[in-house]
């Protein structure tokens, strides 16, 4: 596992990181890759408090902010998402974080390869959908794109289920997977499954995806992705990723960011 994951990242930069410690126990959801039945979920607890972010921009001031950014913060990466009125961030935790030099949205979190991608209800042709309905639609959309890209004619319907991570009640999370009809290669490694964890925040869908080899256990992947997703917080104003990056670079970042995921 470790060797092949490293092979997937021939072009990765490496990082200094904190010494590894035992991760906090996080119960992984049952894998939808084994076509678990979809069960309704209970309403979640109250929303976690928003975290103060450096240098928020005044609402009436023209801003030049990236819509998405992945910032190294020592305990992993802070993924920032600015999409108009919808702004949120989450921590991608790792004791040994690495990042692709070819795509900032591709990271290696303690040997688990994760690619983050964002889309919107409008982009997938369902502008009115929100919440779980949007996530189910996005799953079908992404599976169809994947099938056509790979030339698969007989892709089994993707299977998924909602999971409860203690986020705000208006933020829905969907764990799902694709079983490819034939192995395919990612950077020279044969994989045959992809595990996804998607979240809908208003009309925005952020998806964490991780490819799996036939022999890989999806539970550690699910654990990493759910730990990251659990750290998602809305922000009351756009997040100045450049200011956050500079603050992190100076070693002065608010410890509240890493506290979202606990010690790693």
């Amino acid at each position, binding site marked *: 596992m470790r060797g092949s994951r490293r092979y997937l990242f021939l072009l990765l930069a490496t990082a200094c990181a904190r010494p590894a410690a035992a991760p906090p126990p996080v119960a992984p959801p049952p894998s939808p890759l084994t076509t678990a039945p979809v069960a309704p979920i209970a309403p979640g607890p109250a929303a976690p408090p928003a975290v103060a972010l450096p240098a928020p921009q005044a609402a009436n001031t*023209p801003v030049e902010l*990236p819509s998405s*950014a992945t910032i190294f913060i020592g305990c992993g990466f802070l993924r920032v998402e600015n999409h*108009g009125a919808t702004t949120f961030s989450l921590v991608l935790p790792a004791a040994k974080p690495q990042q692709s030099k*070819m795509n900032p949205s591709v990271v290696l979190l303690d040997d688990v390869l994760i690619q983050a991608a964002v889309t919107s209800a409008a*982009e997938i042709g369902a502008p009115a959908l929100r919440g779980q309905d949007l996530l189910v639609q996005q799953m079908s959309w992404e599976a169809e794109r994947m099938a056509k890209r790979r030339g698969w004619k007989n892709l089994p319907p993707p299977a998924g289920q909602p999971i409860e991570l203690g986020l705000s009640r208006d933020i829905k999370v969907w764990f799902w997977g694709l079983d490819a009809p034939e192995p395919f290669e990612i950077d020279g490694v044969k994989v045959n499954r992809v595990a996804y964890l998607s979240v809908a925040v208003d009309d925005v869908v952020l998806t964490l995806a991780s490819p799996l080899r036939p022999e890989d256990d999806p539970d550690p992947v699910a654990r990493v992705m759910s730990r990251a997703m659990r750290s998602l917080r809305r922000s009351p104003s756009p997040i100045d990723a450049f*200011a956050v990056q500079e603050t992190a*670079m100076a070693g002065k970042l608010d410890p509240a960011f890493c506290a979202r995921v606990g010690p790693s």
Partner: protein
Amino acid sequence: MSKLAVAFDLPQTEPVETELPGNPLATELAAQMAGLGISVSDVDMHEGYGWAWLATCEDATHYIVLAPFRDGEPGLWLLRFEPQFGLAARLKAARYRAAEAKLKEIIDRLLRATSGVTNVEWE
């Protein structure tokens, strides 16, 4: 007005049934950027979401994704930008911000000068 991404219209020249159109347009945009002195990578597919390349302007690198089918319709496009900070980022925020602003100005000019492109709108 914030400038998170730029939307524009350009009639799709590839067959409508092409699953992920935009490679020629992305390649052309990247080539034009290179012609203006910006260091660019090859264009590659960003999974099913679009076509992507890296552009380095004033020491700051951005990952650019050209997404087809904005609003589910062919001929409507969206360009997204993501800074590539890396793990050893050295630039101050002001430098990144200035570089991104310049990159977006260049892309805005390129799009407006491209035959057939209409409704260039930053959103």
